[in-house]
Protein backbone atom coordinates (compact mmCIF):
# COMPACT_ATOMS: atom_id res chain seq x y z
CA UNK A 1 0.00 0.00 0.00
CA UNK A 2 2.69 2.43 1.00
CA UNK A 3 4.78 1.38 -1.95
CA UNK A 4 1.87 1.89 -4.27
CA UNK A 5 1.14 5.42 -3.18
CA UNK A 6 4.78 6.28 -3.23
CA UNK A 7 5.09 4.97 -6.70
CA UNK A 8 2.17 7.15 -7.74
CA UNK A 9 3.65 10.20 -6.18
CA UNK A 10 6.86 9.58 -7.96
CA UNK A 11 5.19 9.01 -11.27
CA UNK A 12 3.16 12.19 -10.99
CA UNK A 13 6.22 14.16 -10.03
CA UNK A 14 8.19 12.64 -12.82
CA UNK A 15 5.60 13.25 -15.50
CA UNK A 16 6.22 16.36 -17.56
CA UNK A 17 4.63 19.34 -15.86
CA UNK A 18 1.03 19.45 -17.05
CA UNK A 19 -0.45 22.68 -18.24
CA UNK A 20 -1.63 24.12 -14.98
CA UNK A 21 -3.66 27.32 -14.92
CA UNK A 22 -1.66 30.39 -14.09
CA UNK A 23 -1.73 31.18 -10.39
CA UNK A 24 -4.33 33.72 -9.42
CA UNK A 25 -6.75 32.65 -12.12
CA UNK A 26 -8.78 30.82 -9.54
CA UNK A 27 -9.14 33.90 -7.41
CA UNK A 28 -9.81 36.09 -10.39
CA UNK A 29 -12.61 33.81 -11.52
CA UNK A 30 -14.12 33.79 -8.08
CA UNK A 31 -13.98 37.56 -7.83
CA UNK A 32 -15.45 37.99 -11.30
CA UNK A 33 -18.42 35.82 -10.47
CA UNK A 34 -18.90 37.51 -7.11
CA UNK A 35 -18.71 40.87 -8.83
CA UNK A 36 -21.31 39.87 -11.41
CA UNK A 37 -23.60 38.65 -8.66
CA UNK A 38 -23.20 41.90 -6.76
CA UNK A 39 -24.00 43.78 -9.96
CA UNK A 40 -27.52 42.38 -9.70
CA UNK A 41 -27.87 44.06 -6.31
CA UNK A 42 -26.35 47.28 -7.60
CA UNK A 43 -28.79 47.44 -10.52
CA UNK A 44 -31.80 47.17 -8.22
CA UNK A 45 -30.38 49.78 -5.87
CA UNK A 46 -29.57 51.94 -8.91
CA UNK A 47 -33.13 51.76 -10.19
CA UNK A 48 -34.51 52.79 -6.82
CA UNK A 49 -31.88 55.48 -6.40
CA UNK A 50 -32.41 57.03 -9.82
CA UNK A 51 -36.20 57.08 -9.36
CA UNK A 52 -35.91 58.81 -5.99
CA UNK A 53 -33.28 61.23 -7.29
CA UNK A 54 -35.30 62.06 -10.38
CA UNK A 55 -38.61 62.31 -8.56
CA UNK A 56 -37.40 64.28 -5.55
CA UNK A 57 -38.07 67.77 -6.99
CA UNK A 58 -41.68 66.78 -7.69
CA UNK A 59 -42.17 65.29 -4.25
CA UNK A 60 -40.66 68.40 -2.72
CA UNK A 61 -42.83 70.73 -4.77
CA UNK A 62 -46.15 69.02 -4.14
CA UNK A 63 -45.53 67.01 -0.99
CA UNK A 64 -48.12 64.36 -0.21
CA UNK A 65 -50.50 66.27 -2.44
CA UNK A 66 -48.67 64.71 -5.39
CA UNK A 67 -50.28 61.39 -4.61
CA UNK A 68 -53.77 62.65 -3.79
CA UNK A 69 -54.13 65.37 -6.42
CA UNK A 70 -55.82 64.42 -9.66
CA UNK A 71 -54.68 67.50 -11.59
CA UNK A 72 -52.17 66.86 -14.36
CA UNK A 73 -51.74 70.12 -16.18
CA UNK A 74 -48.62 70.59 -18.24
CA UNK A 75 -49.35 74.23 -19.07
CA UNK A 76 -49.67 75.29 -15.45
CA UNK A 77 -46.97 72.89 -14.25
CA UNK A 78 -49.33 71.26 -11.76
CA UNK A 79 -48.98 67.53 -11.35
CA UNK A 80 -50.82 64.95 -9.31
CA UNK A 81 -50.62 61.18 -9.51
CA UNK A 82 -54.07 60.18 -8.31
CA UNK A 83 -55.67 59.47 -11.72
CA UNK A 84 -52.73 57.35 -12.83
CA UNK A 85 -52.60 55.49 -9.51
CA UNK A 86 -56.32 54.70 -9.65
CA UNK A 87 -55.97 53.63 -13.29
CA UNK A 88 -53.04 51.36 -12.48
CA UNK A 89 -54.77 49.74 -9.53
CA UNK A 90 -58.12 49.30 -11.24
CA UNK A 91 -56.71 47.78 -14.43
CA UNK A 92 -54.55 45.42 -12.37
CA UNK A 93 -57.51 44.47 -10.20
CA UNK A 94 -59.69 43.74 -13.24
CA UNK A 95 -56.81 41.71 -14.67
CA UNK A 96 -56.69 39.60 -11.51
CA UNK A 97 -60.46 39.11 -11.31
CA UNK A 98 -60.52 37.78 -14.88
CA UNK A 99 -57.06 36.27 -15.11
CA UNK A 100 -56.83 34.30 -11.89
CA UNK A 101 -59.80 31.94 -12.47
CA UNK A 102 -58.62 31.40 -16.04
CA UNK A 103 -55.06 30.65 -14.93
CA UNK A 104 -56.12 28.29 -12.16
CA UNK A 105 -58.51 26.55 -14.54
CA UNK A 106 -55.69 26.04 -17.02
CA UNK A 107 -53.35 24.79 -14.28
CA UNK A 108 -55.99 22.32 -13.07
CA UNK A 109 -56.63 21.17 -16.62
CA UNK A 110 -52.92 20.63 -17.23
CA UNK A 111 -52.27 18.71 -14.00
CA UNK A 112 -55.52 16.82 -13.42
CA UNK A 113 -57.61 16.48 -16.56
CA UNK A 114 -55.31 16.59 -19.56
CA UNK A 115 -54.49 13.29 -21.29
CA UNK A 116 -50.70 12.77 -21.16
CA UNK A 117 -50.15 13.09 -24.92
CA UNK A 118 -51.80 16.50 -24.94
CA UNK A 119 -49.94 17.85 -21.94
CA UNK A 120 -46.83 19.13 -23.66
CA UNK A 121 -48.43 20.89 -26.63
CA UNK A 122 -50.99 22.62 -24.40
CA UNK A 123 -48.37 23.68 -21.85
CA UNK A 124 -46.14 25.04 -24.62
CA UNK A 125 -49.05 26.94 -26.18
CA UNK A 126 -49.86 28.63 -22.89
CA UNK A 127 -46.19 29.42 -22.27
CA UNK A 128 -45.87 30.93 -25.74
CA UNK A 129 -48.54 33.46 -24.73
CA UNK A 130 -45.82 34.90 -22.51
CA UNK A 131 -43.38 35.13 -25.41
CA UNK A 132 -45.63 37.32 -27.57
CA UNK A 133 -44.27 40.89 -27.25
CA UNK A 134 -46.50 43.21 -25.30
CA UNK A 135 -46.77 45.62 -28.20
CA UNK A 136 -48.46 42.86 -30.22
CA UNK A 137 -51.06 42.47 -27.47
CA UNK A 138 -51.54 46.21 -27.74
CA UNK A 139 -52.18 46.00 -31.48
CA UNK A 140 -54.52 43.05 -31.06
CA UNK A 141 -56.35 44.88 -28.30
CA UNK A 142 -56.72 48.10 -30.22
CA UNK A 143 -57.44 46.88 -33.74
CA UNK A 144 -59.21 43.57 -33.16
CA UNK A 145 -60.57 43.34 -29.64
CA UNK A 146 -61.66 46.95 -29.01
CA UNK A 147 -64.06 47.23 -32.00
CA UNK A 148 -65.68 43.90 -31.13
CA UNK A 149 -65.86 44.89 -27.48
CA UNK A 150 -67.49 48.22 -28.33
CA UNK A 151 -70.10 46.65 -30.60
CA UNK A 152 -71.02 43.57 -28.63
CA UNK A 153 -70.43 44.61 -25.02
CA UNK A 154 -70.15 48.34 -24.44
CA UNK A 155 -73.10 49.49 -26.55
CA UNK A 156 -75.61 46.80 -25.46
CA UNK A 157 -74.60 47.01 -21.80
CA UNK A 158 -74.72 50.82 -21.84
CA UNK A 159 -78.20 50.71 -23.32
CA UNK A 160 -79.41 48.34 -20.63
CA UNK A 161 -77.91 50.04 -17.61
CA UNK A 162 -78.51 53.64 -18.67
CA UNK A 163 -80.20 55.56 -15.86
CA UNK A 164 -79.82 52.82 -13.27
CA UNK A 165 -78.22 53.80 -9.98
CA UNK A 166 -74.57 52.71 -9.38
CA UNK A 167 -74.51 50.14 -12.21
CA UNK A 168 -75.56 52.92 -14.56
CA UNK A 169 -72.40 54.79 -13.62
CA UNK A 170 -69.91 51.96 -13.50
CA UNK A 171 -70.97 50.26 -16.71
CA UNK A 172 -72.01 53.22 -18.85
CA UNK A 173 -69.86 54.20 -21.80
CA UNK A 174 -70.24 57.82 -22.80
CA UNK A 175 -68.29 57.22 -25.98
CA UNK A 176 -68.32 53.51 -26.76
CA UNK A 177 -65.00 53.36 -28.61
CA UNK A 178 -63.91 50.04 -27.13
CA UNK A 179 -60.85 51.39 -25.37
CA UNK A 180 -60.79 52.10 -21.66
CA UNK A 181 -59.99 50.77 -18.22
CA UNK A 182 -61.93 47.51 -18.64
CA UNK A 183 -60.38 46.75 -22.04
CA UNK A 184 -56.92 47.31 -20.59
CA UNK A 185 -57.81 45.03 -17.69
CA UNK A 186 -58.94 42.26 -20.06
CA UNK A 187 -55.77 42.49 -22.17
CA UNK A 188 -53.68 42.44 -18.98
CA UNK A 189 -55.62 39.38 -17.79
CA UNK A 190 -54.59 37.50 -20.92
CA UNK A 191 -50.99 38.63 -20.51
CA UNK A 192 -50.66 37.43 -16.91
CA UNK A 193 -52.28 34.04 -17.56
CA UNK A 194 -49.08 32.26 -18.62
CA UNK A 195 -47.19 33.48 -15.54
CA UNK A 196 -49.80 32.49 -12.97
CA UNK A 197 -50.75 29.28 -14.77
CA UNK A 198 -47.21 27.95 -15.06
CA UNK A 199 -46.37 28.62 -11.40
CA UNK A 200 -49.71 27.19 -10.24
CA UNK A 201 -49.05 24.12 -12.39
CA UNK A 202 -45.64 23.63 -10.80
CA UNK A 203 -47.15 24.00 -7.34
CA UNK A 204 -49.89 21.47 -8.07
CA UNK A 205 -47.33 19.09 -9.53
CA UNK A 206 -45.27 19.29 -6.36
CA UNK A 207 -48.08 18.05 -4.14
CA UNK A 208 -47.37 14.40 -3.36
CA UNK A 209 -49.63 12.24 -5.49
CA UNK A 210 -50.30 9.98 -2.48
CA UNK A 211 -52.56 12.72 -1.13
CA UNK A 212 -54.49 12.91 -4.36
CA UNK A 213 -54.72 9.18 -4.76
CA UNK A 214 -55.99 8.63 -1.23
CA UNK A 215 -58.68 11.23 -1.81
CA UNK A 216 -59.73 9.50 -5.02
CA UNK A 217 -59.52 6.23 -3.12
CA UNK A 218 -62.24 7.20 -0.69
CA UNK A 219 -64.46 8.15 -3.60
CA UNK A 220 -63.86 11.85 -4.10
CA UNK A 221 -64.71 13.38 -7.45
CA UNK A 222 -62.10 15.46 -9.28
CA UNK A 223 -63.82 18.64 -8.09
CA UNK A 224 -63.66 17.49 -4.48
CA UNK A 225 -60.02 16.51 -4.79
CA UNK A 226 -59.20 19.94 -6.21
CA UNK A 227 -61.34 21.81 -3.72
CA UNK A 228 -60.52 19.91 -0.53
CA UNK A 229 -57.07 18.47 -1.10
CA UNK A 230 -55.08 20.31 -3.76
CA UNK A 231 -56.08 23.92 -3.12
CA UNK A 232 -55.62 23.76 0.69
CA UNK A 233 -52.27 22.05 0.15
CA UNK A 234 -51.13 24.65 -2.38
CA UNK A 235 -52.63 27.43 -0.26
CA UNK A 236 -50.29 30.33 0.28
CA UNK A 237 -48.07 29.70 -2.69
CA UNK A 238 -51.04 30.03 -5.06
CA UNK A 239 -51.53 33.47 -3.55
CA UNK A 240 -47.83 34.07 -4.19
CA UNK A 241 -48.32 33.14 -7.84
CA UNK A 242 -51.24 35.55 -8.04
CA UNK A 243 -49.14 38.33 -6.52
CA UNK A 244 -46.50 37.67 -9.15
CA UNK A 245 -49.16 38.13 -11.81
CA UNK A 246 -50.25 41.32 -10.06
CA UNK A 247 -46.66 42.60 -10.21
CA UNK A 248 -46.66 42.03 -13.96
CA UNK A 249 -50.02 43.68 -14.43
CA UNK A 250 -49.04 46.79 -12.48
CA UNK A 251 -45.96 47.53 -14.56
CA UNK A 252 -47.12 46.46 -18.02
CA UNK A 253 -46.65 49.35 -20.39
CA UNK A 254 -47.04 48.98 -24.12
CA UNK A 255 -50.22 46.93 -24.33
CA UNK A 256 -51.94 49.21 -21.83
CA UNK A 257 -50.78 52.34 -23.63
CA UNK A 258 -52.55 51.09 -26.75
CA UNK A 259 -55.90 50.29 -25.19
CA UNK A 260 -56.36 52.34 -22.03
CA UNK A 261 -57.38 55.48 -23.90
CA UNK A 262 -54.82 57.77 -22.22
CA UNK A 263 -57.36 60.18 -20.78
CA UNK A 264 -56.44 62.24 -17.79
CA UNK A 265 -59.66 62.34 -15.86
CA UNK A 266 -61.22 60.36 -13.12
CA UNK A 267 -64.33 58.55 -14.26
CA UNK A 268 -66.74 56.37 -12.36
CA UNK A 269 -67.17 54.07 -15.33
CA UNK A 270 -64.81 51.22 -16.17
CA UNK A 271 -65.81 51.63 -19.82
CA UNK A 272 -64.28 55.09 -19.93
CA UNK A 273 -60.71 55.79 -20.97
CA UNK A 274 -58.16 56.42 -18.26
CA UNK A 275 -54.43 56.12 -17.86
CA UNK A 276 -51.95 54.14 -15.80
CA UNK A 277 -48.61 55.18 -14.36
CA UNK A 278 -46.71 53.21 -16.98
CA UNK A 279 -48.80 54.45 -19.90
CA UNK A 280 -48.40 58.05 -18.81
CA UNK A 281 -44.63 57.71 -18.57
CA UNK A 282 -44.52 56.06 -21.99
CA UNK A 283 -46.63 58.80 -23.56
CA UNK A 284 -45.11 61.90 -22.06
CA UNK A 285 -41.54 61.19 -21.08
CA UNK A 286 -39.84 62.01 -24.36
CA UNK A 287 -41.48 65.42 -24.63
CA UNK A 288 -41.20 66.22 -20.93
CA UNK A 289 -38.95 68.96 -19.60
CA UNK A 290 -38.37 70.50 -16.20
CA UNK A 291 -40.85 69.71 -13.49
CA UNK A 292 -42.90 67.44 -15.74
CA UNK A 293 -39.89 65.17 -16.11
CA UNK A 294 -39.48 65.08 -12.36
CA UNK A 295 -43.17 64.36 -11.89
CA UNK A 296 -42.93 61.42 -14.30
CA UNK A 297 -39.90 60.16 -12.41
CA UNK A 298 -41.88 60.46 -9.19
CA UNK A 299 -44.63 58.39 -10.82
CA UNK A 300 -41.98 55.82 -11.69
CA UNK A 301 -40.84 55.87 -8.07
CA UNK A 302 -44.37 55.14 -6.84
CA UNK A 303 -44.74 52.33 -9.39
CA UNK A 304 -41.40 50.89 -8.33
CA UNK A 305 -42.28 50.88 -4.64
CA UNK A 306 -45.69 49.30 -5.24
CA UNK A 307 -44.44 46.56 -7.56
CA UNK A 308 -41.43 45.97 -5.33
CA UNK A 309 -43.69 45.41 -2.32
CA UNK A 310 -45.98 43.11 -4.31
CA UNK A 311 -43.09 41.09 -5.75
CA UNK A 312 -41.35 40.71 -2.37
CA UNK A 313 -44.59 39.42 -0.89
CA UNK A 314 -45.05 37.08 -3.86
CA UNK A 315 -41.56 35.70 -3.55
CA UNK A 316 -41.95 35.13 0.20
CA UNK A 317 -45.25 33.31 -0.28
CA UNK A 318 -44.08 31.13 -3.15
CA UNK A 319 -40.87 30.06 -1.48
CA UNK A 320 -42.54 29.13 1.80
CA UNK A 321 -44.13 26.01 0.42
CA UNK A 322 -40.96 24.83 -1.29
CA UNK A 323 -39.21 24.83 2.07
CA UNK A 324 -42.05 23.39 4.14
Amino acid at each position, binding site marked *: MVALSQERLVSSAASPARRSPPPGR*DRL*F*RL*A*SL*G*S*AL*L*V*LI*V*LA*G*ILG*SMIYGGLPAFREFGLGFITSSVWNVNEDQYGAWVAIVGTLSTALIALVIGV*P*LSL*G*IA*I*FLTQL*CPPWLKRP*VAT*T*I*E*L*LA*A*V*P*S*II*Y*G*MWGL*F*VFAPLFANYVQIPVSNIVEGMPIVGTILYARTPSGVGILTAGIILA*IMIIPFIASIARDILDQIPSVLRESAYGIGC*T*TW*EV*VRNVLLPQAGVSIIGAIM*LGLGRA*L*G*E*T*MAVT*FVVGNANRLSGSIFDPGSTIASRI*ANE*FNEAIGLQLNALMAL*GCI*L*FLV*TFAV*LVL*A*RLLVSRVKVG
Partner: protein
Amino acid sequence: MDTALPARVAPTTVAPAPWGRVRRSRHVANQALKIICTLFTILGATVLGWILLMLLYEGIGGLSPAVFTETTPGPGSQGGGIANALVGSLILTFLGIVVATPVGVLAGTYLAEYGKASKLAEIIRFVNDILLAAPSILIGLFVYMLMVQPMGGYSGWAGGVALAIIAVPVIVRTTEDMLRLVPGSLREAGAALGAPMSTVIIHISWKAARAGMVTGILLATARIAGETAPLLFTALNNNFWFNPTLMGGVSNLPVMIFQFALSPYENWRELAWAGALIITMSILALSVVARLLLRKDKAR
Protein backbone atom coordinates in the same frame (compact mmCIF):
# COMPACT_ATOMS: atom_id res chain seq x y z
CA MET B 1 -67.01 -12.67 3.13
CA ASP B 2 -66.34 -11.38 -0.31
CA THR B 3 -69.62 -12.53 -1.63
CA ALA B 4 -71.55 -11.50 1.45
CA LEU B 5 -70.50 -7.87 1.36
CA PRO B 6 -72.29 -6.74 -1.78
CA ALA B 7 -75.45 -8.48 -0.60
CA ARG B 8 -75.45 -6.58 2.66
CA VAL B 9 -74.71 -3.24 0.98
CA ALA B 10 -77.22 -3.59 -1.79
CA PRO B 11 -80.43 -2.92 0.15
CA THR B 12 -79.11 0.38 1.55
CA THR B 13 -78.50 1.90 -1.88
CA VAL B 14 -81.65 3.09 -3.49
CA ALA B 15 -81.78 2.50 -7.21
CA PRO B 16 -78.37 3.72 -8.41
CA ALA B 17 -78.54 6.69 -10.74
CA PRO B 18 -77.35 6.15 -14.31
CA TRP B 19 -73.95 7.80 -13.55
CA GLY B 20 -73.25 5.46 -10.63
CA ARG B 21 -73.72 5.97 -6.93
CA VAL B 22 -72.68 9.60 -6.89
CA ARG B 23 -75.10 12.21 -5.65
CA ARG B 24 -76.37 14.42 -8.41
CA SER B 25 -74.96 17.68 -7.00
CA ARG B 26 -71.49 16.15 -6.68
CA HIS B 27 -71.69 14.86 -10.20
CA VAL B 28 -72.78 18.23 -11.54
CA ALA B 29 -70.02 20.09 -9.66
CA ASN B 30 -67.45 17.66 -11.00
CA GLN B 31 -68.63 17.92 -14.59
CA ALA B 32 -68.78 21.70 -14.27
CA LEU B 33 -65.16 21.81 -13.12
CA LYS B 34 -64.02 19.64 -15.98
CA ILE B 35 -65.93 21.59 -18.60
CA ILE B 36 -64.89 25.00 -17.24
CA CYS B 37 -61.21 24.10 -16.97
CA THR B 38 -61.21 22.67 -20.48
CA LEU B 39 -62.97 25.75 -21.83
CA PHE B 40 -60.49 28.07 -20.12
CA THR B 41 -57.59 26.19 -21.66
CA ILE B 42 -59.21 26.32 -25.09
CA LEU B 43 -59.78 30.04 -24.60
CA GLY B 44 -56.09 30.59 -23.80
CA ALA B 45 -55.01 28.66 -26.88
CA THR B 46 -57.60 30.48 -28.99
CA VAL B 47 -56.18 33.87 -28.06
CA LEU B 48 -52.70 32.79 -29.19
CA GLY B 49 -54.11 31.43 -32.43
CA TRP B 50 -56.20 34.55 -32.95
CA ILE B 51 -53.20 36.83 -32.49
CA LEU B 52 -51.12 34.79 -34.93
CA LEU B 53 -53.92 34.74 -37.51
CA MET B 54 -54.35 38.49 -37.13
CA LEU B 55 -50.64 39.02 -37.74
CA LEU B 56 -50.66 36.77 -40.80
CA TYR B 57 -53.82 38.36 -42.22
CA GLU B 58 -52.65 41.93 -41.73
CA GLY B 59 -48.92 41.45 -42.15
CA ILE B 60 -48.48 39.17 -45.14
CA GLY B 61 -49.92 41.73 -47.55
CA GLY B 62 -47.30 44.22 -46.48
CA LEU B 63 -44.35 41.87 -46.94
CA SER B 64 -42.41 42.67 -50.09
CA PRO B 65 -38.73 42.79 -51.02
CA ALA B 66 -38.81 46.54 -50.44
CA VAL B 67 -39.62 45.93 -46.79
CA PHE B 68 -36.18 44.42 -46.32
CA THR B 69 -34.20 46.83 -48.49
CA GLU B 70 -35.63 50.32 -48.02
CA THR B 71 -35.55 52.54 -44.98
CA THR B 72 -38.62 53.68 -43.11
CA PRO B 73 -40.48 56.39 -45.05
CA GLY B 74 -40.91 59.90 -43.71
CA PRO B 75 -44.35 61.29 -42.91
CA GLY B 76 -46.52 61.50 -45.97
CA SER B 77 -44.07 59.85 -48.38
CA GLN B 78 -44.98 56.70 -50.25
CA GLY B 79 -43.68 53.15 -50.00
CA GLY B 80 -40.60 52.47 -47.96
CA GLY B 81 -39.41 49.51 -45.92
CA ILE B 82 -38.12 48.71 -42.51
CA ALA B 83 -34.55 47.68 -43.29
CA ASN B 84 -33.02 50.18 -40.85
CA ALA B 85 -35.36 49.10 -38.07
CA LEU B 86 -34.60 45.42 -38.68
CA VAL B 87 -30.85 45.96 -38.60
CA GLY B 88 -31.14 48.30 -35.63
CA SER B 89 -33.15 45.74 -33.69
CA LEU B 90 -30.62 43.02 -34.48
CA ILE B 91 -27.76 45.22 -33.31
CA LEU B 92 -29.52 46.29 -30.10
CA THR B 93 -30.54 42.73 -29.23
CA PHE B 94 -27.05 41.47 -29.99
CA LEU B 95 -25.53 44.23 -27.89
CA GLY B 96 -27.86 43.43 -25.01
CA ILE B 97 -27.06 39.73 -25.10
CA VAL B 98 -23.31 40.28 -25.46
CA VAL B 99 -23.33 42.44 -22.34
CA ALA B 100 -25.75 40.26 -20.42
CA THR B 101 -24.28 36.82 -21.12
CA PRO B 102 -20.97 37.07 -19.22
CA VAL B 103 -22.55 38.92 -16.31
CA GLY B 104 -25.53 36.57 -16.11
CA VAL B 105 -23.52 33.38 -16.48
CA LEU B 106 -20.93 34.44 -13.91
CA ALA B 107 -23.56 35.61 -11.43
CA GLY B 108 -25.49 32.36 -11.88
CA THR B 109 -22.23 30.47 -11.40
CA TYR B 110 -21.58 32.36 -8.19
CA LEU B 111 -25.00 31.43 -6.84
CA ALA B 112 -24.73 27.76 -7.75
CA GLU B 113 -21.03 27.07 -7.10
CA TYR B 114 -19.71 29.58 -4.57
CA GLY B 115 -22.57 31.24 -2.72
CA LYS B 116 -24.92 28.26 -2.44
CA ALA B 117 -26.98 28.73 0.72
CA SER B 118 -25.02 31.65 2.15
CA LYS B 119 -26.87 34.76 3.24
CA LEU B 120 -25.41 36.88 0.43
CA ALA B 121 -26.43 34.31 -2.17
CA GLU B 122 -29.94 34.17 -0.74
CA ILE B 123 -30.27 37.94 -0.99
CA ILE B 124 -28.95 38.03 -4.53
CA ARG B 125 -31.30 35.23 -5.55
CA PHE B 126 -34.18 37.16 -4.02
CA VAL B 127 -33.25 40.40 -5.75
CA ASN B 128 -32.74 38.60 -9.03
CA ASP B 129 -36.25 37.17 -8.86
CA ILE B 130 -37.60 40.66 -8.30
CA LEU B 131 -35.61 42.09 -11.22
CA LEU B 132 -36.97 39.24 -13.33
CA ALA B 133 -40.48 40.64 -12.95
CA ALA B 134 -39.68 44.34 -12.54
CA PRO B 135 -41.56 46.67 -14.91
CA SER B 136 -39.38 47.13 -17.98
CA ILE B 137 -40.34 50.78 -18.36
CA LEU B 138 -38.60 51.53 -15.06
CA ILE B 139 -35.43 49.99 -16.44
CA GLY B 140 -35.79 52.38 -19.36
CA LEU B 141 -36.06 55.31 -16.95
CA PHE B 142 -33.04 54.07 -15.01
CA VAL B 143 -30.86 53.83 -18.09
CA TYR B 144 -32.10 57.25 -19.19
CA MET B 145 -30.78 58.69 -15.94
CA LEU B 146 -27.66 56.55 -16.05
CA MET B 147 -26.55 57.01 -19.65
CA VAL B 148 -28.78 59.21 -21.81
CA GLN B 149 -28.65 62.27 -19.57
CA PRO B 150 -24.91 62.16 -18.80
CA MET B 151 -24.00 61.36 -22.43
CA GLY B 152 -26.18 64.18 -23.65
CA GLY B 153 -28.41 62.22 -26.00
CA TYR B 154 -30.11 59.00 -27.01
CA SER B 155 -27.84 56.22 -28.17
CA GLY B 156 -27.86 52.61 -29.22
CA TRP B 157 -25.46 51.89 -26.37
CA ALA B 158 -28.03 53.00 -23.84
CA GLY B 159 -30.63 50.81 -25.57
CA GLY B 160 -28.26 47.85 -25.45
CA VAL B 161 -27.60 48.33 -21.76
CA ALA B 162 -31.33 48.64 -21.01
CA LEU B 163 -31.97 45.37 -22.84
CA ALA B 164 -29.02 43.75 -21.06
CA ILE B 165 -30.49 44.65 -17.67
CA ILE B 166 -33.66 42.84 -18.68
CA ALA B 167 -31.77 39.81 -19.99
CA VAL B 168 -29.40 39.35 -17.03
CA PRO B 169 -31.94 38.03 -14.49
CA VAL B 170 -33.23 35.48 -17.01
CA ILE B 171 -29.70 34.19 -17.65
CA VAL B 172 -28.78 34.19 -13.95
CA ARG B 173 -31.84 32.15 -13.11
CA THR B 174 -31.45 29.51 -15.82
CA THR B 175 -27.68 29.25 -15.33
CA GLU B 176 -28.10 28.62 -11.62
CA ASP B 177 -30.91 26.12 -12.13
CA MET B 178 -28.93 24.20 -14.73
CA LEU B 179 -25.70 24.17 -12.72
CA ARG B 180 -27.59 22.82 -9.74
CA LEU B 181 -28.67 19.84 -11.81
CA VAL B 182 -25.02 18.87 -12.35
CA PRO B 183 -24.29 16.06 -9.88
CA GLY B 184 -21.81 16.95 -7.12
CA SER B 185 -19.86 13.76 -7.74
CA LEU B 186 -18.69 15.14 -11.09
CA ARG B 187 -17.21 18.18 -9.35
CA GLU B 188 -15.64 16.00 -6.66
CA ALA B 189 -14.06 13.83 -9.32
CA GLY B 190 -12.52 16.92 -10.87
CA ALA B 191 -11.34 18.26 -7.53
CA ALA B 192 -9.84 14.87 -6.66
CA LEU B 193 -7.63 15.14 -9.71
CA GLY B 194 -6.28 18.34 -8.24
CA ALA B 195 -8.08 20.76 -10.50
CA PRO B 196 -8.64 24.19 -8.94
CA MET B 197 -12.20 25.34 -8.45
CA SER B 198 -12.25 27.57 -11.52
CA THR B 199 -11.09 24.70 -13.74
CA VAL B 200 -13.72 22.40 -12.27
CA ILE B 201 -16.44 24.95 -12.96
CA ILE B 202 -15.33 25.85 -16.48
CA HIS B 203 -14.42 22.39 -17.72
CA ILE B 204 -16.89 20.22 -15.80
CA SER B 205 -19.90 22.13 -14.49
CA TRP B 206 -20.32 24.46 -17.46
CA LYS B 207 -19.73 21.65 -19.91
CA ALA B 208 -22.32 19.44 -18.26
CA ALA B 209 -24.88 22.23 -18.08
CA ARG B 210 -24.13 23.71 -21.49
CA ALA B 211 -27.41 22.93 -23.26
CA GLY B 212 -29.46 24.39 -20.43
CA MET B 213 -27.34 27.50 -20.25
CA VAL B 214 -27.61 28.06 -24.00
CA THR B 215 -31.38 27.66 -23.67
CA GLY B 216 -31.38 30.37 -21.02
CA ILE B 217 -29.48 32.71 -23.29
CA LEU B 218 -31.84 31.99 -26.20
CA LEU B 219 -34.87 32.61 -23.99
CA ALA B 220 -33.32 35.87 -22.81
CA THR B 221 -32.79 36.85 -26.46
CA ALA B 222 -36.43 36.10 -27.20
CA ARG B 223 -37.45 38.14 -24.21
CA ILE B 224 -35.50 41.28 -25.12
CA ALA B 225 -36.07 41.15 -28.88
CA GLY B 226 -39.64 42.35 -28.49
CA GLU B 227 -39.18 44.76 -25.61
CA THR B 228 -40.45 48.22 -26.44
CA ALA B 229 -40.80 50.17 -23.23
CA PRO B 230 -37.11 50.27 -22.25
CA LEU B 231 -36.11 51.44 -25.74
CA LEU B 232 -38.51 54.39 -25.80
CA PHE B 233 -36.22 56.59 -23.72
CA THR B 234 -32.87 55.07 -24.59
CA ALA B 235 -32.44 54.11 -28.24
CA LEU B 236 -35.49 56.10 -29.35
CA ASN B 237 -36.15 55.56 -33.05
CA ASN B 238 -35.83 57.45 -36.28
CA ASN B 239 -36.55 57.08 -39.96
CA PHE B 240 -32.99 56.98 -41.25
CA TRP B 241 -29.98 54.74 -41.22
CA PHE B 242 -28.41 55.35 -37.86
CA ASN B 243 -24.94 56.66 -37.18
CA PRO B 244 -22.36 53.83 -37.18
CA THR B 245 -21.20 54.97 -33.74
CA LEU B 246 -24.74 54.22 -32.53
CA MET B 247 -25.01 57.73 -31.11
CA GLY B 248 -28.31 59.52 -31.58
CA GLY B 249 -31.53 57.62 -32.14
CA VAL B 250 -31.16 54.07 -33.42
CA SER B 251 -34.14 52.81 -35.36
CA ASN B 252 -35.55 49.55 -34.03
CA LEU B 253 -38.56 47.39 -34.76
CA PRO B 254 -40.58 47.58 -31.53
CA VAL B 255 -40.58 51.37 -31.25
CA MET B 256 -41.09 51.67 -35.01
CA ILE B 257 -44.18 49.44 -34.70
CA PHE B 258 -45.45 51.51 -31.79
CA GLN B 259 -45.12 54.77 -33.70
CA PHE B 260 -46.31 53.50 -37.07
CA ALA B 261 -49.28 51.47 -35.84
CA LEU B 262 -50.88 54.54 -34.28
CA SER B 263 -50.09 56.83 -37.22
CA PRO B 264 -52.62 58.20 -39.72
CA TYR B 265 -50.58 57.09 -42.78
CA GLU B 266 -51.71 53.96 -44.60
CA ASN B 267 -48.21 52.84 -45.65
CA TRP B 268 -46.86 53.37 -42.12
CA ARG B 269 -49.53 51.13 -40.67
CA GLU B 270 -48.88 48.49 -43.31
CA LEU B 271 -45.18 48.52 -42.42
CA ALA B 272 -46.06 48.28 -38.73
CA TRP B 273 -48.05 45.11 -39.41
CA ALA B 274 -45.26 43.63 -41.51
CA GLY B 275 -42.79 44.41 -38.72
CA ALA B 276 -45.12 42.93 -36.12
CA LEU B 277 -45.42 39.72 -38.13
CA ILE B 278 -41.64 39.42 -38.56
CA ILE B 279 -40.80 40.12 -34.93
CA THR B 280 -43.47 37.85 -33.42
CA MET B 281 -42.67 34.92 -35.67
CA SER B 282 -38.93 35.24 -34.97
CA ILE B 283 -39.50 35.39 -31.22
CA LEU B 284 -41.91 32.45 -31.18
CA ALA B 285 -39.53 30.42 -33.35
CA LEU B 286 -36.65 31.25 -31.01
CA SER B 287 -38.67 30.22 -27.94
CA VAL B 288 -39.71 26.93 -29.53
CA VAL B 289 -36.14 26.15 -30.62
CA ALA B 290 -34.87 26.89 -27.11
CA ARG B 291 -37.44 24.52 -25.63
CA LEU B 292 -36.63 21.76 -28.13
CA LEU B 293 -32.93 22.11 -27.38
CA LEU B 294 -33.52 21.63 -23.67
CA ARG B 295 -35.86 18.68 -24.22
CA LYS B 296 -33.37 16.94 -26.51
CA ASP B 297 -30.68 17.39 -23.89
CA LYS B 298 -32.89 16.03 -21.12
CA ALA B 299 -33.81 13.02 -23.22
CA ARG B 300 -30.14 12.27 -23.63
